[in-house]
């Protein structure tokens, strides 16, 4: 990493330079251990290695250059914030840092201790001055997808310019009305921030851009149904994670090339692991960069991950916005409908998620489902119990893991995951 070239920029962004250096060093080593050590990786992954090595460097430089030209940067923590609207107003949409333990002690002065690691992380990153994305934002958009986030945004608003969208908790006609009002409110806010009025032309282009990125990720997902698996779960997760940071068009192009390589690999019957390797579907809470702990444990235990049923995974890519609208009004309706199809655990009863997990497990030919819940995440914690019963009824083995970002439970996780993999192997006979 060309750190020296970026120091002045980080200083201008008011990062805590020594602490940030420490973070990058740890991340670099972590990435080396988990990613660079893999055998038989696809050539196209070099793009991801590069993007990740420059995630706090070149990408931030790009954001600064765009800002110098008058563009605005909008930061988010959730797949509910309609990116199409951000892009249609000429702004840049990025996901913010929330996948590592950082500034925990500072965060615990703003939010209760029994708050999930993801929330503590984004608050800690801000308070400890470690996230150049948050520091670059002209607006941070939150949402009411759980009580923890909802209340944390109140505290966060004292540190960043904040807008909170209300996501309904059910999917009736009146909930759709509420959500549409929120989408329109977001549109007005973004237009005011950027000074640009969203037109049918700009919105149609934005819808196509975001749909194209979803389609290429759908293609990646479909290729992972092949046996032997053409790509490791770690690499596929990284691709999904990077989709929240990188320029959407550049990303779509690069992943499309990577999918071509995967297609050739599948056609040749080659993969990253032997065909009899147990295949697992991950399901549950999002794994934000650089939360690679569980995938690493799973793939070190001799299994391969073939899908991520999560916000950094299929929940973000499964549904497209209908492209047939011609007026802004029609397109807004299409956006409202698409986002309300998200099967987030904040909804009740959210039974479609149970069906979606079963369908995905079958489509990916998974031997089992590994449920991942962040400690203190009530919505996914509850659904984990419901999903376990449903999977059992469907005859799909599952293991529920509850953990956070710390490393102290890695040995216990290993034993549990290895035992699950042994169980799947013995079932196959």
């Amino acid at each position, binding site marked *: 990493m060309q750190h020296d070239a970026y120091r002045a920029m980080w200083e201008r962004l008011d990062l805590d330079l020594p602490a940030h250096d420490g973070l990058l060093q740890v991340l670099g080593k972590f990435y080396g251990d988990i990613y660079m050590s893999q055998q038989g990786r696809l050539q196209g992954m070099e793009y991801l290695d590069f993007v990740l090595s420059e995630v706090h460097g070149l990408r931030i430089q790009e954001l600064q250059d765009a800002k110098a030209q008058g563009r605005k940067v909008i930061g988010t923590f959730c797949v509910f914030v309609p990116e199409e609207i951000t892009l249609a107003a000429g702004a840049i949409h990025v996901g913010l840092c929330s996948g590592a333990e950082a500034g925990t002690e500072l965060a615990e002065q703003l939010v209760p201790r029994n708050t999930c690691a993801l929330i503590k992380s984004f608050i800690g990153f801000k308070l400890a001055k470690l996230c150049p994305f948050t520091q670059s934002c002209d607006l941070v958009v939150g949402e009411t997808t759980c009580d923890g986030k909802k209340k944390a945004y109140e505290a966060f608003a004292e540190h960043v310019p904040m807008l909170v969208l209300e996501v309904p908790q059910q999917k009736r006609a009146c909930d759709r009305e509420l959500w549409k009002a929120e989408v329109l409110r977001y549109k007005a806010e973004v237009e005011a921030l950027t000074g640009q009025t969203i037109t049918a032309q700009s919105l149609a282009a934005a819808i196509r851009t975001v749909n194209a990125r979803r389609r290429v990720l759908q293609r990646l997902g479909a290729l992972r149904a092949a046996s032997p698996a053409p790509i490791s779960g770690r690499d596929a997760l990284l691709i999904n994670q990077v989709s929240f940071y990188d320029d959407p068009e550049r990303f779509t192009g690069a992943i499309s090339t990577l999918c071509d390589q995967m297609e050739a690999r599948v056609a040749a019957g080659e993969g990253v692991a032997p065909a009899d390797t147990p295949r697992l579907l991950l399901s549950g809470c999002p794994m934000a960069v650089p939360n690679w702990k569980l995938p690493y444990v799973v793939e070190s235990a001799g299994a391969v991950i073939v899908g991520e049923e999560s916000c950094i995974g299929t929940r973000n890519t499964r549904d497209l916005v209908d492209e047939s609208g011609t007026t802004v009004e029609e397109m807004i309706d299409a956006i409202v409908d698409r986002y309300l199809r998200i099967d987030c655990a904040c909804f009740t009863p959210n039974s479609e998620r149970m069906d979606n997990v079963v369908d995905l497990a079958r489509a990916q030919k998974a031997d089992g489902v590994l449920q991942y819940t962040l400690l203190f995440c009530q919505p996914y914690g509850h659904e984990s119990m419901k999903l376990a019963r449903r999977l059992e009824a469907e005859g799909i083995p599952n293991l529920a893991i509850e953990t956070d970002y710390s490393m102290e*439970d890695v040995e*216990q996780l290993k*034993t549990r995951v290895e*035992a699950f993999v*042994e*169980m799947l192997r*013995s079932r196959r006979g």
Partner: protein
Amino acid sequence: MAEIVALGIDVGSRSMELVALDAQAAVVDSARLPTTFHPVAQLAALLAGRTAPMVTATGYGRELVGQVVGSEVATITEITAYALGAAVSAPRARTILDIGGQDTKAIRLDAQGQVLKFEMNDRCAAGTGKFLEHMATVFQIPVEEFGVFALGGREGVRINAMCTVFAETEATSLMAQGHRPEDIAWALHASVCQRTASMLGRVGLTPPLLFAGGVARNPCMVRLVEKLTGVSPIIPEDPDTVGALGAAYHAWRRWASSAQSAS
């Protein structure tokens, strides 16, 4: 002594066990030592020069065994090892409860002895042998006698905290209130057993139940497991070595299939 063809070694957090099998899969030798903070040295002492064509290791320290044995060692998790061990020591068992030094496991098996579902305690040692060991120290009673002591207790006192530190505080204040030590000891056992019973409930307890691990030697725990689950558990003759026995059986099967392919 018959020739040893398979060795199973279970390196747990508190103790390590070894089981040796002959060509007929009969147990011909076994040994046990505390793990201590020098597990590699203890392993060498445990092996005491024993070797076998096939060695399988399990438990917390399973990766260490290769360093000592010198030849290639297969490793399996405790879950698989206990399932295999149960198949030998209690072939009809459909559920296994193992309470060891730092781990509690509940495993449900199908009719063929394959693992269907399992649960393990989280990162904390609450509800494990370690908890009882610590409390025995507080009572100044050797851990081996703590269960017998607790059997003299009566129901009525409750311990709510599962954290070892808080439970000790609770026990101390109960003593200050003048409760009988035996009743408090009973309550401590009951709190461990409560947690164990809910774990068994989550895997779907199906009798017969095999109760293994060092804590299966504690008569108060056995009584309470029976009381809370309504199932009278099978206690193997040597409850500490079920994991090592399973590992030995795993090694023996590898030996048998390699002997078969060689002939």
